[in-house]
């Protein structure tokens, strides 16, 4: 070919390329929204979510949000997510449980600390969040989702609460009135009364992994160690607005390492005693053989148990039951129950688990999508925007300042005001391996197959090993490890 033709061809090619290149750089974000926010599988909230995403598209036409279809089975999602990480295809924004996310840390997730300090451009002037995004969230929420290394890897747009749902008829017929419970001991007595009439009192399930037993444990361990907890706080996590708050992973690990939380302490005996009491008297027989939340729900539905500890997300389904459903909560510990209790009320067990746990994967930094992802989240968390979702989502309580809960969720406001449980679920207290070990040991103890002494010996070993593992990993951030 002669030069002339080549040049012509080359310039034609260049021209085509030039016009084909978009005038703006397109950013694509892949997001896995959990159930309640799914854009496809939730008939109630999907329209609201989709409407918000449409609005966002108008604001930011150069950003495409690809919402990944929801997987309602958590095991399936976990398998999917794990393999995506292994293959480098993880989404930009993904849901994950806070304890797992925090355990995985910055290997998999992006620290959001700097972003939380930035202003949220979508919030109108004068409202919280305008100057600093973190102001949109409640301090106790932020305190609880903070990881052991001091970073935040997620935001929480909502929380779940838990409550005691009661079969009113069954209780009334048998002379049990939870509203009359003043202390833990009263509750245990009611359980005994029910048992005497051959009725299963409380539905809770327990496995070596997560289970509703963990909620029970959170409250009991707090009641047994309440007078010590505040002395374990570290200054960097504390704020004068929160004299009582939940312990952080680092704080608890330090307390273990320094021998302040130990099985030889008489408080541990109280802990075990309270646990044994409720297991023997209150929990449905065979609780150690129930492996799914759905099964407890089933026991409550068919009238096998008089009360069940369920999450607020189950509330909508309870309206269909053939009997009237009441709700109550666990009463506080009195001096006869735990001599170490200092609070006059019971403890809140609920979030940070929820649908609205959203975080960025670490790879967004390399992909360059981090800023766009944060922008999307900032848009979503604007109170006026999020309100549209909160109005229709019934089972979760919104945790953004200025957003009102839906009528169904409003019933949990009282519980939401209770003081925080002192420690998070066992599976999140130290390492996940420690969590499953805790569950196994306590399970055997609660069904009478492991003696208190054996449990203490094995539990102390598990504690020490977990702290050792954590210190190996985090010796740079946790300076006290080397002392």
């Amino acid at each position, binding site marked *: 070919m002669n030069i002339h033709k080549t040049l012509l061809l080359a310039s034609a090619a260049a021209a085509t390329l030039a016009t084909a290149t978009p005038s703006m750089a397109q950013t694509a974000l892949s997001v896995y929204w959990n159930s309640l926010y799914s854009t496809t599988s939730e008939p109630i909230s999907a329209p609201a979510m989709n409407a918000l995403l449409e609005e966002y598209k108008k604001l930011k036409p150069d950003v495409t949000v690809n919402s990944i279809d929801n997987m309602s089975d958590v*095991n399936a999602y*976990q*398998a999917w997510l*794990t393999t995506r*990480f*292994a293959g480098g295809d993880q989404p930009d924004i993904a849901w994950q449980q806070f304890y*797992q996310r925090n355990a*995985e840390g910055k*290997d*998999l997730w992006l620290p959001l600390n700097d972003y939380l300090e930035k202003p949220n451009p979508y919030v109108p002037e004068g409202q919280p969040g305008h100057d600093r995004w973190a102001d949109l969230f409640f301090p106790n929420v932020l305190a609880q989702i903070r990881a052991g290394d001091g970073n935040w890897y997620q935001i929480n747009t909502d929380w779940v609460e838990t409550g005691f749902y009661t079969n009113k008829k069954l209780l009334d017929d048998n002379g049990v009135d939870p509203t009359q419970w003043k202390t833990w001991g009263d509750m245990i007595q009611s359980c005994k009364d029910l048992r005497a009439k051959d009725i*299963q009192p409380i539905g809770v399930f*327990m*496995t*070596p*992994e997560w289970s509703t037993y963990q909620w029970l444990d959170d409250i009991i361990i707090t009641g047994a160690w309440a007078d010590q907890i505040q002395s374990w706080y570290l200054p960097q996590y504390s704020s004068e607005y929160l004299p009582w708050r939940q312990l952080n992973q680092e704080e608890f690990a330090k307390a273990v390492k320094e021998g302040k939380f130990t099985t030889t302490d008489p408080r541990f005996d109280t802990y075990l005693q309270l646990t044994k009491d409720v297991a023997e008297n209150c929990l*449905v*027989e*065979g*609780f*150690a*053989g*129930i*492996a*799914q939340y759905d*099964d407890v729900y089933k*026991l409550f539905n*068919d009238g*096998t148990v008089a009360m069940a500890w369920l999450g607020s997300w189950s509330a909508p389904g309870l309206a269909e039951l053939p009997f009237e459903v009441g709700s109550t909560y666990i009463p506080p510990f009195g001096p006869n129950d735990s001599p170490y209790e200092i609070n006059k009320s019971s403890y809140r067990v609920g979030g940070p688990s929820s649908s609205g746990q959203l975080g960025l994967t*670490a790879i967004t930094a390399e992909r360059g999508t981090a800023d766009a992802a944060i922008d999307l989240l900032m848009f979503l968390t604007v109170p006026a925007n999020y309100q549209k979702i909160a109005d229709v989502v019934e089972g979760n309580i919104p945790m953004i300042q200025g957003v009102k809960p839906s009528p169904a969720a409003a019933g949990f406001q009282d519980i939401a005001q209770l003081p925080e449980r002192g420690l998070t679920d066992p599976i999140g207290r130290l390492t*996940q*391996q420690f969590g*499953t070990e805790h*569950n*196994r*040991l306590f*399970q*055997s103890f609660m*069904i009478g*197959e*492991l003696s208190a002494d054996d449990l203490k010996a094995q539990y102390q070993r598990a504690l020490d090993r977990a702290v050792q593992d954590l210190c190996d990993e985090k010796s740079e951030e946790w300076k006290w490890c080397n002392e």
Partner: protein
Amino acid sequence: MTTATATGRRPSYYINRYLPWILLAPVMIHLIVFRYIPTFSAFYYSLTNWNGIKAAKFVGLRNYTDLFTDYVFLDGLRNMVIYTSIRVVLLIGFAFLAAELVFSFKSASVRTFWKIVFVIPLVVPVSVVYLLWGFIFEPQSGLLNTLLNSVGLGAYANQWLGTSATALYSIAFVQFPFVAGLSFLVFISALEGIPGDVLDACKVEGCGRFRRVWSVDVPMLRGSLIFIAVLIVLGGIQTIEPQLILTRGGPGTATESPGFYVYRAAFQYSDFGLAAAAGVIMVFVGLVFSFYTVRARYKGAYDVDL
């Protein structure tokens, strides 16, 4: 009719000589890519501390020593032995019984009817079966305890899955006394394959039903019995559904299994090195077990007359 190549041999000579290799080539390529390579990758991972994200660091045999000092894993191995033994006896027992009973019918169409009867239930997904048996084992409203109470055996009612003493046996007895469709078909077709003169010879000698079963059927079915037993054992080694659906390994470690251990290590702890090591051990257990049984089966396997 044929053209000679430079060496003087027809192309079909080469095909004839190397035919088995040609036939097996696509198979081997496929297996290498999709089975052997991932398997050896897993072997390699078992010597590292890979967590899916950080570059894998070689740690030698540490995962293996961790496994053998972890009482959870060891209990799982022990459980696996018990569970598998029970399953082999139950599944083979009832499948063989059903096969013998169906074999006693002379009419082929009757037999086909029963074959269909026992094959259709194979379509039920495993998760449904375990879900159902979870309901059956429930202490209060479950079928088992309700039945025991109604026939006056209430003293035996138990928290089947909630106590260590009974949990493992409960999951081993799931579906009792059902007939495993595939095993049943294997046995019935093997029985139908027994040469008629052998059966006649036995009758001439005055065999009763039981004697025939014992001295003719069982020896002739030796191959099928061993084959099915191996499959059940391999399945038992890899068992994971009862844990996933019913017990999650509890209470305590009563129903732990190596397969579930792998699953948990991989997907909950993201400790792929440990998961791979546990999986590798499962492979070796399977190999050791099968080696003797398969070799016994193939001893004297004749070379094929071409």
